[in-house]
Structure formats: C-alpha cells, structure tokens
C-alpha cells in the first residue's frame, strides 16, 4: 500500500507488509464490518509484492491491485504519490474513493510523505496520524482522533478524505484459514504505467525531483571508554550523577 521506493534494487527481495500499513488495513476492515465498505488494497512494487496483497485479501480485503512496472523504478515520494494516485483513480473507474488510508509511514524510507502527496494529487482533505476513526456513512462524515506533538486532537470533517494511520490504532487482525486459502487463488490485477494512464514524465526516476547523489556510512561520534561490568554500582552511580550535575 505504501512503498517508498528509492533507487533500491528490489528484484528478488521478499516483500513484507509495512507494519504501519497493517493498521491502516485494520481500520479499513473495521469500516467494512461496521459500514459495509468495499476494501481495495493497492501496493506499488516488484511482482513479488503481490504476496502483500494476498495477505490483505486473506484478512478480508475485497480487491487488490499491484502497481508494477520497470517504468516506476527509482521513484521518489513525489513520483510515487502520483503513480499511486493514478492507480487509485483507475481502481475507482475514474472516481475517488470515499476514504484512502495509508500507514503513517513506510519502514524503509520513513518519510511519511506519500499519504500527504496522494491527498494533494487527489485534491482531498488530509488527516494525518489517526489513532481512532469513526465514519458516519449516512452523513458522509468522519470523526478522527489524531496524535500531534502536543497531544491528541479530535477533528470532524466530510468524506472523501485521505488519512494516515498510527500504530496506536486498533491492532491488525489475523487472517482466517479460509481467507488464506481463497486469497491464494485470488486474481490480482497488475497495473503498469499504461493501465493507470500515467504521464511518462511524472513517474520513475524521470518524474522524481530528488536525486540521491551519494551514500556513505554514518559519521562516528567516536566511542569513548568501554568497560566490563564487574558489579561496581557505586562507580556507575557516580558517573551518572556527574553527567547530570555537570
């Protein structure tokens, strides 16, 4: 659902569900249970990323799309946001869904930028850092509890909207065995750049304003002394006090 590719080589690397996205999926499945939503899962990545989608189907998602093509390779968060936005529109036959959920961030890039980027491309309100969500399907509105730096905020607003979900949200459910069996057989539609009608100048490396120009090991702060613990709590306490009291 939320890959943030850089120029990583992903071929042959096993795909896992981004842990944050599992919480987003759980929110979606809870809405399916309570409000009868149809849950569509989308991920972007190499062919083996379909395993992630099968996992989501096993847990109860209704449809799955894999956005995959070499043309998407090397995408930064802007190009990824664009491609995923196009795929969302494609999955909805040109219509925007009522709710688009993302995990707060991916655990590879950690940027937390793709969800907000998609909200811009789809021109939808953005609610970030959601830990609790209630949707009133009748009035087409939501109430969300978000966690900001200075504490929680409860906001209300109209749907459709884009949200990013925290790990403080309800924990992901397990897939029932029957779900796993049918998911293994389910058809996963693969969307390439043509299928989503992507402007070639906006995807992949070409569509990425940011370029990684160098990678290097982190600078060492320079470790200090290393001592073996021999039970000398008094020295350790003195060291700790000295650091605090200066």
């Amino acid at each position, binding site marked *: 659902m939320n890959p943030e590719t850089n120029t990583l080589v992903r071929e042959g690397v096993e795909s896992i569900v981004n842990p944050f996205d599992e919480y987003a999926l759980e929110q979606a499945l809870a809405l399916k249970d309570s409000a009868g939503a149809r849950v569509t899962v989308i991920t972007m990545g190499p062919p083996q990323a379909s395993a992630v989608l099968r996992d989501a189907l096993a847990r109860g998602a209704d449809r799955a799309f894999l956005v995959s093509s070499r043309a998407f390779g090397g995408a930064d968060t802007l190009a990824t946001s664009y491609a995923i936005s196009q795929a969302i529109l494609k999955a909805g036959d040109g219509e925007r869904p009522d709710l688009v959920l993302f995990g707060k961030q991916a655990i590879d890039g950690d940027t937390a930028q793709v969800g*907000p980027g998609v909200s811009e491309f789809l021109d939808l309100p953005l609610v970030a850092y959601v830990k609790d969500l209630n949707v009133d399907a009748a009035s087409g509105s939501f109430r969300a509890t978000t966690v900001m730096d200075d504490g929680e*905020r409860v906001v209300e*607003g109209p749907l459709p909207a884009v949200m990013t979900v925290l790990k403080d949200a309800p924990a992901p459910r397990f897939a029932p065995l029957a779900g796993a069996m049918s998911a293994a057989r389910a058809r996963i539609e693969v969307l390439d750049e043509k299928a989503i009608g992507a402007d070639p100048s906006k995807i992949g490396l070409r569509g990425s304003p940011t370029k990684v120009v160098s990678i290097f090991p982190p600078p*060492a702060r320079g470790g200090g002394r290393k001592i073996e613990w021999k039970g000398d709590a008094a020295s*350790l306490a003195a060291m700790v006090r000295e650091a605090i009291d200066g």
Partner: protein
Amino acid sequence: MADASIQAGDAKCVGCGLGGSKDLWVFAEQNGGKIAEVAFELLGKGLELKSQRGGGCRLCAVLLGSGITSDMTAALSCAGADVVYAVDDPKLAEYEAAVYVDAVSKLILKHRPEVVLAGATAVGRAFFARVAARVRTGLTADCTALSIEEAKVKGAGAMQMLLHQTRPAFGGNIMATILTPNHRPQMATVRPKVFKRKPAAPGRAVVVKEVLDLVAPRMRLVKAGGNPDAVDIAAAEVLVSGGRGLKSAAAFGQLKELADLLGGEVSASRAAVDAGWVPQSRQVGQTGKSVAPKLYLCFGISGAIQHLEGIRGADRIIAVNNDPEAPIFGMADVGIVGDALEIIPALVSELKKGGS
C-alpha cells in the same frame, strides 16, 4: 474505465521551475501564539546556509496564524530573519492541512524562494509533503545535515546553488545525500533538536503582511490536548532508555523507577515500542523523536543508525549492552559491557542508598 485522460492533480499542482529568487525560507510553526522551538533552530542553521549561499540571499520566515503579534515577528527577527512573511487570517486559527498548504503554496509561487525548510513536526511533516506535491518539487524528510554548494546542473544554463540534503536512508546503516537539481524550491524538513538554536541578536526584519485568498477550512476541531501519556521526551534533561535487551514490559517498570530517581523520563528504541512495551510517544530515533538530554542512559539498545541519529544531540551517552560489538558503543561516551537486567536494579539500589 479510467483512461489516460484522467490525470491526478492537474487542477492544482503547478511547477515552479528554476530561475526564482535566491531567498531561503524557514516555516515558523506556531501554536496558540507560541513559535515552535524548531523554527528558531532552523533560522540558526539558515544563517549559516545564507552565508554559504551568498549573492544576496535573504533569510525569510513564514508565519501563519490568526492574531499574529509583533512579539512573534520580533522573535523571528532576533533569531536572524531578514524578512517575515506574515499571513494573518481567521481561516488559519486552527491547523488544517489543506488551508496551510494553500497559504504556503501561494506564497512560494508568488515569491519563488530557492530553499524552503520546515520542522519535521507532526504539523510540518504532513503538510509540507503536500506543499511539495502542489508546487511539484522534491522534499527530503528528516535531514540531519544541510549545506549549500555551487554546482553545474545538466540542462540548466547558469551555475546552480544546490542544497545538499543528508539523511539516514534505506532503513539501514547508511546516510544519503540528496539533491533537487532541476526543481525549485529545494525543500527539506528537519526534526527538532537536530540543529542548535543560536543566541538572539538585535534584528531588523522587514515584516511583510500577506493577504491571500485562502480556501475555507473543511474540518472542525472538536477537542485538543487530551492525552494521558503526553510527554515530550525531546525536552527531557535526562533520559533512561531501554531496548530489545530488556526482554519485557516489566523491565521497563524498573527503568521507570530509575528514571524517577534521576529526575528523568523513560524512552525506548523502536524494537521496544514495536514489542508493545512502551508507547510510541516515547520512541527515540528516526521514526520517533530526536532528543538532546544532558544524559542519555540506555540499556539493551544495540544502536541501529536510526536510533543513533536520534541521540546525536545528547551531551553524554552512557550505554549498557551485553554485546561488546554493539554499534551503540561507537557513539557512547561510556560503554558498559554487561547484563542490563542485572545492572538496572544494582544502580537503582545504589542511587537509593546514596540519597539524592
């Protein structure tokens, strides 16, 4: 079916392109009239970047809100801003991403800064990603180093002044330097406490009051501020931190006792948060918070790069780990090779014995 004529974002997203001003902007986040500390840290860094940039670059602060006071603009001036763009509008009374995005994007398209920096706070992270998408430029999240250097860019005529944006990358033990060569502005977010605030000096910033035709807010704030576990570990003077090596939530109970004895707060590595032993609000590191305590005392944390980046600002690091090769020892001022579960209670009883 969808076809190629459907294009996400065409209604609003517009590119800026090269050839704007030389100015460097800092987003001055404020909440209830109080400007976030990270804005002052960024202005401090901005002064350095301005001198690297040269050539008539101005350091500008962008301040949004309803009821902006002269105290607020004066504080930005004293922190080094040459210009303060102030947008005072009732629509900006409460933070809503879409309205903030509209305001900052309109300012960017009007004045075309070369560089825009924002704090990687809960507010800054989300809405700046959206601003970058609207003005069709790159944004590098959570930079830990920034510099400006002149370079030749393919396809651009004149020499360009490029912002070198360095951050930990690829979820692994590596740093990446990232450029935005062909798009302006060059945008980056920086977490609180990564750069240090510079002392205030007399300032003479020009305050430019901007009147913008902003979109209307669509969300309503029902309640703010409720959180029983709201603790800002970034502001703590002493942090006692635990990781996977503590093996259980119970061990964090002991850590809490130790933190109380030292007048500090408990924090944790990602592994401990992922295990459910500690709430995420106490996570130190690239996906948690960057911290800058006088003492960072940690137990059973091996020291992944994301964690080490988060504690770079600590004055003193004392680390306990049973693996003598743990990367945390490469950064700790004092490393103690031993069993955290034995050392924590020993230190607690020693501190109790010694009184305070």
